Structure formats: structure tokens, C-alpha cells
């Protein structure tokens, strides 16, 4: 007997957002990345296909990070000291796009130089993060936004206490913004309203609901993302933005991934564990509706990519 699978029909959908601009579109990217567009809960293929695959971004930094795990230093090697080289290697590792994280030590000139060299080294679309201090973020991102006008970069990270300058410069120079709220549906929505109120076109906002690593609050982040997606499908315009999350950053903060010494033997092989940690965190978030996951280890990129392939084709 054939069984009829009940299907949900939702009034709302996720907005489609394109990152990066080719020369025809006023930028210099070899390709662009389009995410979003979903009309159902994630990967319910019997209801509707997934219009755009989740994308994987690899995070690189403008200066060699001293506090990253030795496992990451080992795999990226000397390239970590040169953003252009690092970017190339990341592209080879299978990134769909890149995150370039600036540091507090960078001057606006340094930041512009780093961004230009990365744009020159690869054809991938680019997300640029400030170092995470309001004043410094604003100073660096304004310089970067102007220098890379028209590239449809994503500028981040906007938070409720510091978003106006970043949004204004993104609007003026044709870029996008990443809007981060601390794991709360209402707070995410509020920040999206504030940004839209400034006149930012709605197809140029990515929302970052913040997440935790496996074992460190990931399930909370998961349920917030799930609820944001449900609200979006129910027609709430201010939650219909594609989601970007940072499982790489979160996973590599954990003791399990970061530390190789002085831990119980039962934890097993350090490298295998660390990559599992990043991969599993990322995959869970993909399943809850993440549109872009930002990763750090090339092996994780490969595994997450394979898994996404299975999810979307299945």
C-alpha cells in the first residue's frame, strides 16, 4: 500500500543572498556564492528541493595567529604568515569562499593591503571580520569597504551595540553584512530590524545566531537556529536571512580539540579527535539550517563537503 507522506506548505521562505561580484557585476571575483532560498525545513526533499547548497568558508587571518592549535599550524604551515598564500591553499582545500579575520595590530593600511592581496590571490568571494573591538572594527572595516568597493564582500561582525558604522559603509560601497546576536531568536530578529531600518537591502544581510561547539552549548544554538528557520517559514520577514555560523572557531576553542597533552588516554588520538570535533559541530549546524559554515582544518572541510553532498543529493 502506498503511504502518503504529509507535506507542510509554508507561507514564508529564506531569502537568497549572493556573495561576491564578478567583473560583469562590478567586482573581480572568478565566481560568486549564492545561499538561502529554502522553502521548507532543511533537507526535506519530499517537500521541496534544496535550492542552494550550504557553503563552506575557510577562516584565515591577516597575521599568523599565535593562539591557534598546533594541529592547525602544522597543516597550514608557512602559509599562515602570508594571507595571500594562505588564501590560495584554502582554495585548494575546497573552500567555497574565505573569511579573512583582521587583528587588533592591523592599521587600516595593513587591513586594506591584506584584503587586496587575498582578493588578488584567489577568485573566491570574501568575508572580512574586524578584530572584535567596536572602535577598531569600525576603523578597519570602513577602510576595507572603500578599498574593495563593489566586491560584495561580507563585512562583520555587526552586533546590537555596534552596527551602524559597518552597515553604513557596507551600504555605501555595495557590500553585505554579517549580523550576530547571542543565541536568542528575539535578539537576532531585533538586530536584523535595526540593520534593515538603516535602509540596508534585505538581500545583503547574513544572520549569525552564534553557536557553541559540540559539548559546549551546540544543542542550544541548534534549537535557536531551528526556531529562526521556523519563524522564517511562517512568514516573519525579519528572520528570513541565510545563516552563517562559526563551528571552526568554536570547536578549536575546546580543550578536546586544542590540547594534546595531559589528558586521559581514553580520549584517543588527538588529531582524529580534533577534526571529529570540528566536523561534527559543523554537520549538526548544517542540519539545523546553517547556510554557511566557517571552518579551520582542511580535513574537516573535505568531510563536511562530502556530507553536504550526500544530504543534498539524497
Amino acid at each position: 500500500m502506498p503511504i502518503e507522506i504529509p507535506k507542510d506548505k509554508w507561507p514564508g521562505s529564506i531569502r537568497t543572498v549572493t556573495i561576491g561580484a564578478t567583473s560583469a557585476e562590478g567586482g573581480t571575483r572568478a565566481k560568486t556564492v549564492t545561499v538561502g532560498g529554502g522553502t521548507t525545513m532543511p533537507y526535506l526533499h519530499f517537500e521541496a528541493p534544496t535550492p542552494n547548497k550550504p557553503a563552506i568558508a575557510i577562516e584565515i587571518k591577516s597575521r599568523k595567529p599565535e593562539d591557534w592549535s598546533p594541529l592547525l599550524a602544522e597543516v597550514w604551515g608557512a602559509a599562515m604568515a602570508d594571507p595571500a598564500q594562505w588564501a590560495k591553499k584554502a582554495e585548494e582545500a575546497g573552500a567555497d569562499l574565505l573569511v579573512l579575520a583582521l587583528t587588533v595590530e592591523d592599521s587600516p593600511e595593513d587591513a586594506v593591503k591584506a584584503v587586496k592581496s587575498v582578493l588578488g590571490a584567489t577568485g573566491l568571494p570574501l568575508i572580512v571580520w574586524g578584530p572584535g573591538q567596536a572602535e577598531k572594527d569600525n576603523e578597519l572595516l570602513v577602510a576595507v569597504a572603500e578599498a574593495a568597493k563593489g566586491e560584495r564582500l561580507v563585512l562583520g561582525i555587526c552586533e546590537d551595540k555596534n552596527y551602524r558604522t559597518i552597515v553604513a559603509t557596507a551600504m555605501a560601497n555595495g557590500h553585505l553584512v554579517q549580523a550576530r546576536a547571542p543565541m536568542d531568536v528575539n535578539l537576532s530578529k531585533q538586530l536584523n530590524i535595526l540593520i534593515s531600518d538603516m535602509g540596508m537591502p534585505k538581500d545583503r544581510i547574513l544572520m549569525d545566531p552564534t553557536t557553541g561547539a559540540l559539548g559546549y552549548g551546540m544543542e542550544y544554538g541548534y534549537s535557536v537556529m531551528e526556531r529562526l528557520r521556523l519563524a522564517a517559514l511562517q512568514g516573519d520577514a525579519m528572520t528570513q536571512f541565510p545563516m552563517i555560523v562559526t563551528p571552526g572557531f568554536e570547536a578549536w576553542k575546546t580543550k578536546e580539540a586544542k590540547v594534546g597533552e595531559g589528558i586521559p588516554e581514553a580520549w584517543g588520538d588527538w588529531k582524529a579527535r580534533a577534526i571529529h570535533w570540528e566536523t561534527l559541530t559543523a554537520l549538526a549546524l548544517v542540519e539545523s539550517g546553517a547556510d554557511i559554515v566557517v571552518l579551520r582544518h582542511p580535513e574537516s572541510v573535505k568531510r563536511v563537503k562530502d556530507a553536504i553532498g550526500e544530504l543534498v543529493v539524497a
Partner: protein
Amino acid sequence: MNHSLTFTHDEKQASVTVPTNTLLADAARLAGIDIGQPCGGQGRCGRCAVQVTEGQVRRRSTLRLSEADVAQGYALACQTVVEGDAAIYVPPQEKIERRLTTDRVVAEVTVPEDYEYPFSQTVRRVHLTLTPPSMDDQTDDWARLQTAFRLQRRFETVTCSLPLLRTIGSTLRAGDWNVTAIVEISRPSDHQTIRLIDLRPGHEDEYSPLWGAAIDIGTTTVTLWLVDLVTGQVKAQVAEYNGQIARGEDVISRIIYASKNGGADELRQRVLDTINELLERACKRVKLPQGKVTPDQIVKATIAGNTTMMHLFLGIPAASIRLSPFIPAVNHPPALTGREVGLNVNPEAAVDCLPGVASYVGADITAGVLSSGLDSAENVTLFLDVGTNGETVLGNRDWLVTCACSAGPAFEGAGVVNGMRATTGAIEEVWINSDTLEPTYRVIGGGKPKGICGSGLIALLSEAFLTGVIDKGGNVKLDAPSPRVREGAHGGEYVVAWGKETESGEDIVLTRVDIDNLLRAKAAIYAGFTVLAENVGIPLESVDKVLVGGSFGKYINVEKAVQIGLLPDMEWSRFEFLGNTSVKGAYLALLDWRKRERISEIAKRMTYIELSADNSFYEAFTSALFLPHTDLNKFPSVAEALEKSNS
């Protein structure tokens, strides 16, 4: 076409000739009359109302005026244009303010119509004339006094404290066996048992005042009314911040402080100091031909306050209030005396602590329900206390449900840099001109401003929001084109009054931190009543009346309170502002034992709902942590106002 207009203002007349479609405000200026336009002529504030006594005008908007006003010719000068010859009366400001449909002012306290001394009152003055003792009549003084009570007043049983007993003999003799006794009827129902409070030599004038005090011990503000129990009239109203604030802003931090070594004694002493100081101050306010009033003449005090405040005041350990299952030591304190509690009233004075319901719904709310009349309302009514503990009661004469949430003291002016209580010098109303971002404010007492009180903060927050000084998240938009918007020590701030205008010479500002505190307070209150209503399945729209209590001022602009999302978006006519309902309830109970019994009944009838039982309060709270609310659909009138101010 030109028209001639005649303006009457301040008993003077001025005429001008202007073309069709000239704004009345502009025409008035040509005639030499400056009609203030606090909101920048946007039709938002209603302060520019004038009365067209003759002739033809066209009103573009009458938003702030009632239909009756319009029928009487009232028009907004900034929204009305000339269409023919006309005569226009420009009324004085106070007169306009009283007409505005948005403003709710607390009614003056009046003695309840059914108050009848001595029948309603448990404390009375009794004149006795005793037969002097003699060799033939060897009865002792105390028995002699008891006999007089029995024979002359039919009081069968009289009790008396030892310190008072020690003074009886001398008082009887000093009055030559004529005395005035102040007694408390212990049980109003039987009238036979009394307690002696005071014995005074001679026969006092029967109509001279008998002093009582109604006291509300708020977490933030302590309020005291001095009352003549004979006439029932309130003779002085005073208030002061609770001295315990220095040891924590909310009840939880007070309880924690009290559980530290010596903490409970200190907190008790602090609130006693505050009340005793208020007693002095209230007594000084009263001028009588018979001479000065002193606190020791006060023979009855009725006290309302939340459960924690009551415990700390009485020196009863409060720790269990905070710990699951949240059981207070006492909800119905017994009858006490001034000496026992440590008030500087007459040591034998009757001290009546009103009953509460639970750890987080205290006597302030039972008293508030009584004075608001909620317990006899026919239709479903919402009673909100805009105070530190954000108590809410929903119900009518058949049922009452209640909840509480920690809102913080911001609306009482505490925890806000330039906040203050609603007394002389407080800015109680603010308008911001949407073009220039310049404010217009009104100060209580009319002098130089010292700070901003609750009603001023509500208005200021709303105006800053509507004129784009701050965004919906409460961030000060530092790119706003005005020197008043600037970076301060705590982030962005808005200067309400420059130092040269203020009492202290310092700028009066609203800072980012203040805004956060106000947002949290309003979000907690809004979340409290929405979740309560959801819990009982009553849609807010079906609430007939919203009664607002709070000690943040004599007045509230309900439109402003709706615009910041403190009150629900409904017709202004459904709101009523009652001021401090708790002290008012204490006052009613102080006067009339029947009202006092009603409070006990109310306490029994109320059902308490614990908001922290699930996630819904937190959810409602964060969504209300925005201006006016994350879901703008809940505030259609604000959406409309925003659209207007953006266009």
C-alpha cells in the same frame, strides 16, 4: 485671498491679515504671539492647542483633541490652516494640558464617603470622669479606670501595657479624675474588648485631630501619609527613597544582604530611619492652632509593603522567600505596637501590617487591589504596578490572578544617572522637536531642573525614539545632527538640559546605561502582564480597563507609555492612572476596619502564578526588550507614528 484674524491671549488682542492656508501658528507669530511648539509642529504633543471662537479653519489633524474639544472650537495651531476671517483664543498652557486626551493625572485623595468616625475606626478617643477615691471608696486606680470604662462605655475588658500602667495614677490625678483615653477596639465585631493606647489628663476637644499614619514600604520608595483619624483627612503626604537601597536595588539582593552577619539588623534600622525621618517631616508639614504635631502623637499606623520589605521591617528572617519552595515566614503579621516595631510613634500605637499572599505578592498588592477597586470590577480589568517588583493583577469581582517580575527601580528614578523622585525640581515631561532635536520640558514646581522622574523618563525615552535620537534597540545614534547627542562616559547620551539651565550647574543627560535600565524595566512589566493574560487565556484586547499604579509621579502620558511598549496598545480611554495604590490602600485600611477586612479577603482570593515556571516569561521579556517591541504588529499605533515621523 486674504483673511483677517484676531488673536486673544493674556487678555490682550492682536490682529493680522494673512492669505488662505496660512498655519494658525504662523499667523499668531505675525500677530506677535509665540505659540510654543514643543514637538516641532508635528501634531504630536497637542501643546499648541487654541480655540477658534469664530470663523472658518481647516484642521489637518486633531490627534490630541477629544471630539468635545473640537466641537468647542479647539484646534492645533501647528495643524490648522486659515480659510476665512476668524477669531482665535490662545489659552494659557495649564489649561491646555488639562484637556489632552493622553494625559492621566492622579485624582486628589478624598475622604471616602462612607467614613464615619468613630464607627468605622478602631482607634477612638474616650472621655471618662472617674469618682475620686476616698476613705470610703478604696478601689485601686486601675480597677477604678476599668470600672469607668465598663459603666460609662460598656467596654468589658481592658488591657494595658506595663509602661502605660506605670503612668496611670499620675495621669488620673493630674486631670483631677477627668481623663481622655485613646483606645483600640480589639475586635470590631464585639466592641467589648479594648486595649489602652494612651491616657491623657483632662478632656481633650472631641474634634481635635487623632493622628494616624498610612505607610507604604516600597523596595525603592517609602511613602507616608499623615491622617487625622477624626475627619479622615490626609494632612501631609511625604516620600523618600528607602534607605536600604544602598544595600541592594532589588528584593533578592536585600535578602542576601540580610542573611549576612548583622545585615538584617542594619537593613531593619535603615528602613526604620527612613520612616522615622518621614514621620518627622510629615508632622512638621502640619500647622495647627493648638500647637505642634509630633510623631509620638500618632496612635495608629497601617503598613503596606511587599513581603520582603515587611519581613525586613519587622526583623523577621527573609531567607526562605528566596529559596525554593519560596515560603515566607509570615503572610499575615499579628497586631503589633509602635514600641515592638521600633517606630517613633506613640509606643502603644496600634501597628497594623497588612496581609500578603505569597513571597512575591505582598501587602502592597492586596492594598493596591483594594484601592484600585479591582476586586469589585464587573469586567476583566488589568492592574499594573509600575514599580520595582512589577506586580500585576488580572481579574474582576469573581476572580483575581497575580504575578510579579523584577523590573528594577528605573521608573522610580533610581538606577538612572539623573533620575530622581517625582518632587520639586524633577523634569516630569519632555518633548523633543523632531527637526532640531531640541527638547522642551516641564519641571515640577516650575523652577530649575534637578533631575528626571519616572513620567519624565517615559516621555523622554519615547521622544528620543520617535525623533530618531535612539534606535529601536536603545542605541544613541551618535550621527544625529545635534550637539545634544554625544559620546559620554557610558556610551552615547542625550543632553536634556544644559548645565546653565539646571539647579546643580551640571548637564542633565539620558545615558545608554539609563536607557538599558529603562528598557529592562518596561520589558519585564510588559512581559509580566502578557504572560499572565496568556496563562489565564484572556486576550489583552478583551481587557476592559487598565489601571496603572506606581510612585513615579502624579501623572502619566499613556501615549508615551504605549510608544515605549510599557503599556499595551489600546485606546487611551481604557487607561487610568492611580498613583501609589499601595499607600492609598493602607490609608483606606487605616480608616475603616471593614476595608481592612476586605484586604484580608482579597489576600485569600488571589491566585499567584509563578512566571519562572517555564520559558515563556523569558521569551516574552527578550521580545519586549526593544522599542516598542520586536513584534511591531502588537503596536499598530506606534507603527503609524513611526511612519509619520519618517515621512
